Every structure is written in structure tokens, then in C-alpha cells.
């Protein structure tokens, strides 16, 4: 048995985007690092993903989006989380996200952005640092 309580992370897909390979690669990678990863499956709405995060009591949500509608869906997710006072859940996003949108996403509260081509290590390092800040 591990002495340390594992961190729970939700990996989610929002909207009509059905491409889950990236989400599965990240899920498997984080699982190998010792995280408990809940995969939402595809085609979730922002309110469904929020409800999943609450029921599963996760510390972080990673959203994979390849449809180009990341601003729309992630704004909706942030408002849903605010509505239930759960803006303390760490948010990160990956997929086809152009650099030009980084600022807007940062302002929404999504600090970790990992466009396609990002290394897996960069994601785990970012998570490690930000989760420890959150818990510290």
C-alpha cells in the first residue's frame, strides 16, 4: 500500500470532438506516474464535466480539445466550476490550441496549456509544481 494518498485527476473531452487518442495517451502516462485518472469519455458538456469532477472529488481537470472550440468550451467549464464554488480545482488543457489564444485562456484561469507536440514530461512537471502549490 502507498502511504501517500494518490492525487485524483479527471481527463475530459468537451463538445462534439470525438478524438480521444491524446486523452488516452495522457491518461496512461499519468496513471504510470501514480495518479488516479478518471477518464470522462467523449462528448461531455461543461456541466456534465463539472458534475463528474465533483462526484469524483478530483484535484485537477485536464481537457483535451482538438476541435478549435477551446475558448467556448473552456469558458463554459470555468463558469460552471465557479457556480459551485469549485474554482480551486486545477485546470489544464491540451490539443490543437494556437499560441494566439494562450492569453485569453490564461485570463480564464487555465494556466497549463499544452498544444499538440508538447512533451509528456512538460505536463507532469507542470502538474507536480502546481499541485504542490495548491496543497501547500
Amino acid at each position, binding site marked *: *500500500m*502507498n502511504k501517500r*494518498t*494518490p492525487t485524483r485527476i479527471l481527463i475530459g473531452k468537451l463538445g462534439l470532438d470525438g478524438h480521444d487518442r491524446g486523452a488516452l495517451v495522457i*491518461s*496512461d502516462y*499519468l*496513471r*504510470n*506516474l*501514480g*495518479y*488516479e*485518472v*478518471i*477518464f*470522462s*469519455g467523449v*462528448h*461531455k*458538456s461543461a*456541466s*456534465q464535466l463539472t*458534475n*463528474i469532477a*465533483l*462526484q*469524483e*472529488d478530483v484535484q485537477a481537470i485536464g481537457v483535451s480539445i482538438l476541435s478549435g472550440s477551446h475558448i467556448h468550451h473552456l469558458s463554459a467549464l470555468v463558469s460552471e466550476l465557479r457556480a*459551485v*464554488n*469549485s474554482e480551486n480545482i486545477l485546470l489544464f488543457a491540451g490539443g490543437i490550441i494556437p499560441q494566439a489564444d494562450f492569453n485569453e485562456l490564461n485570463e480564464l484561469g487555465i494556466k497549463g496549456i499544452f498544444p499538440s507536440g508538447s512533451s509528456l514530461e512538460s505536463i507532469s512537471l507542470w502538474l507536480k509544481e502546481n499541485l504542490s502549490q495548491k496543497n501547500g
Partner: protein
Amino acid sequence: MRKLNGDDSDVRHMILDLKEKVSEPLSKRLGQALSLVENSKIMAEPSLQLEETSSLRPHVFVFVGPSGVGKSVLIDRLIPFFLRDFNFIAVLATDPSSSLGGGALLGDRVRMSENEGNERIFYRSIASRGSKNAFSDSIPGMLEVLKIFSVDVVLVETMGVAQNDSTSSTIADTLINILGPTAGDEIQLYKSGILEYGDIFFINKSDLDNSDLIYSLLKMKLYQNLIPQIEKFPKVLKGSADKREGMEELYNLMYLHMQKVKLSKIESLP
């Protein structure tokens, strides 16, 4: 939130506080309450028993069967029937933690597509965290929490079980044992272990070859032990969760068994 120090009474109070904190959504409060039990490793022993929750606990249906036999899909397909008869339903789904790194991919929820977002269903994915059973060691404690939060009925999905794993019967009011068409030949059905347990046996994927044979062999095996009392459980059914065949029949049997169990509980009251 206060840090846990392993003191059971502390955890108990925090769970009751969460129940009362109605300004927050129920899914959030219950989600956090289950984490308290999971992370403090307190069990369902008297530590969690509370006078004000002395009512009968929710009925617990446990689903066992090998990995990939269709337990998650079956639960998803049964939920509409439960929604018809019950107000608040909880699903607890265990998947294995890695013995190498401790991590887990909790993927049962993916099958929940049709019922995701319904406020009358609470779904929690649970990693086994080193449990030697087919379910997480936290489940008995979690069942107590679900009782405190007035859940009516609980569906427990176990990990894909091995042949010799029969501990799931210890937490079940009704045990549903699920087999697939690849369950083997007649000799496999006569072996000791998991097939000795089950109030209801369900042969899933009945659209595939060999399921009729498994159905007949299992039915014969179970009923030849029961000839004087043929009306009693266990029962054998077949169907296909994916194609929604046999779902209502299965649900009706589950409901019937639940009523029998509840009746026997009431009769045993002082």
C-alpha cells in the same frame, strides 16, 4: 478543510457537516465525504454508525464477473429501471490500482454516457489501492456514507474477478454474477470459487456463439442442486446489455430478490 489526523470521530463529524452544508451541491458534498472515508481508511465498523442513521442501509447490488464481460454497460442499461422505482441511486465502480506505481485508470464511467448528468444518480470511480478483494477496502465505509446521505439503492461494480475471488458476497445484499460466452466448458462451471456465489447469474453477450450452451449448462448445474426447492434463487438469465435484450427481466428478478432480502431483514428485527 481540516487536515485528517486519522481520528475517526473527527471524520464522522466532517461527514455530518458535509451532509448539512446544503448551500453546496449534493454531488460535491457527497464526493468529498466519500474521499474522507477513502483517505482515512476507516471502515464500516461501529466508528461510523450513528444513531440518527439507524434506519436500514440502502440495498446493495454487487456485480461480479471477468474483465470485459460487460459489467459497466449492464449497469448503465439497468439504471433507467432503477430511476423508475427509486429516488436516489449510487454507483460505486472499482478498477485496479497498479502494484507498480500505485496509479489507476478509472474508466468505467465512460459507459455511463446515457445517464451522465442525471442528478438522481451519484457515480464514483474507485481505485483498489492495494485491496486483496475485487472491491476497494473503502467500500464498506462508503456504504455507510451513502446511508447518511439517504441513498436508496447502491450498485457496486467490482473489478474483473479471478476464479477464486468470492469475497464480493460479503458486501452484497444481492449478488449478480455475470458470465460471457467464453466462460469455458461444463467442467469450468463445476469448479469451486466464484461460481458458487450469486443470487442471479446473467449470461451477457447472448448474441454471440456459445452463450446458449453456457446458459443451458449453468442452469442445469445450479438447478440440479435445488430440485426440491426449484422456485428459490439462484436464477439464470441471458441477454445482451449492449443490445438491451433481457434487461427488464433481469431488473425484475433483482427487484424481487431485494424484496425477499428486505422482508427477511424486517422479520429478523427484535
